[in-house]
């Protein structure tokens, strides 16, 4: 693992319908790592990811990816640069088949998709079995796998995930986190937003805690897991 920075956010501010959703945060995402943003509802985690993806406009600050400024770029330009967001709530195209959902993940690319499909099917054998089904007929866990598979089809360098464990059964949550690790081991940098702080901190190399638009704490996953304040605020009622 290198310490080379893949993505650097500096003093990012985002105002959103009259609310200061993100109030000047700075985040470093080194290459090949898993970085997580934790925090409660409305802390600005999703807004941060959506601003990086270009679907929300930043008010000020800078987002630098491999030396290029992302602010002002359109979502399709950002996808072409190698950043993909798995949106909150999965958002698979329910009116498209599983295969079409995967193909649309590689929409910006013109190459043959066979190898990429094979790679995704290898990670998620379920998707191969259901390739011809409409995505709307899949279970929640399967849809989440499809959403991740779809994102991988664009061959991202940075994979951003917004609450991948939301609304899923504990057993499936475990699968999802295993997959995040696997994907990361294959050389994809991961920026993960989670409310499931316990799981997220366990797999993260470094973590930021967001509170109402500000970073209130940061440190390695293990440091934060051991921190009293974090244990109280985010892990309190959870069993290990």
């Amino acid at each position, binding site marked *: 693992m290198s310490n080379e920075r893949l993505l650097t956010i500096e003093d990012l501010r985002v105002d959103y319908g009259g609310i200061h959703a993100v109030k000047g945060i700075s985040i470093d995402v080194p290459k090949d790592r898993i970085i997580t943003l934790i925090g409660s509802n409305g802390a600005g985690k999703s807004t941060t990811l959506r601003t990086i993806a270009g679907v929300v406009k930043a008010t000020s600050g800078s987002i630098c990816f491999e030396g290029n400024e992302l602010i002002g770029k359109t979502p399709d330009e950002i996808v072409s640069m190698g950043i993909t967001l798995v949106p909150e709530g999965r958002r698979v*195209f329910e009116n*498209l088949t599983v295969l079409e959902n995967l193909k649309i*993940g590689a*929409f910006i690319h013109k190459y043959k998709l066979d190898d990429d499909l094979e790679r995704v099917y290898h990670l998620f054998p379920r998707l191969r079995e259901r390739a011809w089904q409409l995505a709307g007929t899949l279970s929640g866990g399967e849809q989440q796998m499809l959403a991740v598979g*779809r994102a991988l089809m664009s061959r991202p360098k940075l994979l951003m995930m917004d609450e991948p464990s939301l609304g899923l059964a504990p057993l499936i949550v475990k699968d999802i986190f295993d997959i995040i690790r696997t994907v990361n081991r294959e050389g994809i940098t991961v920026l993960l937003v989670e409310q499931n702080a316990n799981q997220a901190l366990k797999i993260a190399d470094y973590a930021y805690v967001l509170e109402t638009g500000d970073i209130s704490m940061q440190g390695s996953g293990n440091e934060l897991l051991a921190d009293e304040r974090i244990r109280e605020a985010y892990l309190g009622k959870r069993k290990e």
Partner: protein
Amino acid sequence: MSSTILLQHTLTGISLGGAYALIAIGYTMVYGILRLINFAHGDIFMMAGYFMIFAMASMPWFIAIPLVMILTVMLGIAVEQVAYKPLRSAPRMSIMISAIGVSYLLQNLATYLFTALPRGYPEIPYLKKILHIGDVSASLVTIITPFLTVALTFLLIALINHTKLGMAMRAVSRDYETSQLMGIKINRVISATFAIGSLLAFIGSLLYFTDRMTVFPFSGTLPGLKCFVAAVLGGIGSIPGAVVGGFILGIGETVLVAMGYSTFSDAFTFAILIVMLLFRPTGLFGEKVTDKV
């Protein structure tokens, strides 16, 4: 009514229905992707009629047709760019009002530029040729309209189900933001939708006006409304639905005329609209509306 006359009228009805179907597809496609009833669509159809009159005045038909086709498509795209695109994130009511505005603008522009007097639609060679099949006689345009409509419908459905553009259209119609996250340029997809709708409106105008023989600034109003009803009848958002709806209205209207109730032929269309909205608002082929979460 003798069987010959019945056959004759059915043929006319099918032909009118085919032209309606082509225009109705434009309503249904735009609704599918923007959730907008594009009230200007009938007026784009009318403008296509005028473009053809002027083009045919100075050039042969084989140049005029492709040229007018391009002009109509450009007009459709321009309307979208100017009147709808800036309102992409506005409430749906605003964009609908904008559509009504464009409709009046085009009608008044046509009145100002071309006067309100009806102008003769040019005769395109071969289309007016009368064919006799047994006792039934019909112009060539009457006979080719339904076939052309069905062929174009199949082509369009193939485009939507089997091409990358079609896949993008289906994705955008479902979820703008996620489509953007996939790298789809949604504005391009929307432009393509308007281009296809306008192209079909042009073909519809060619078939319709060849039969009707005149164009005036309000020529698009009533056919436009009827085709909108056809789209609702079939289930707005559904392409096969729009085609079936178009044929039902075209045939129904002609049959009423044949039975001597021509006064009621327009009322028939709107009675259908009311009945559909009361008893089956999703139309014949419409999917159940499930609101996005």
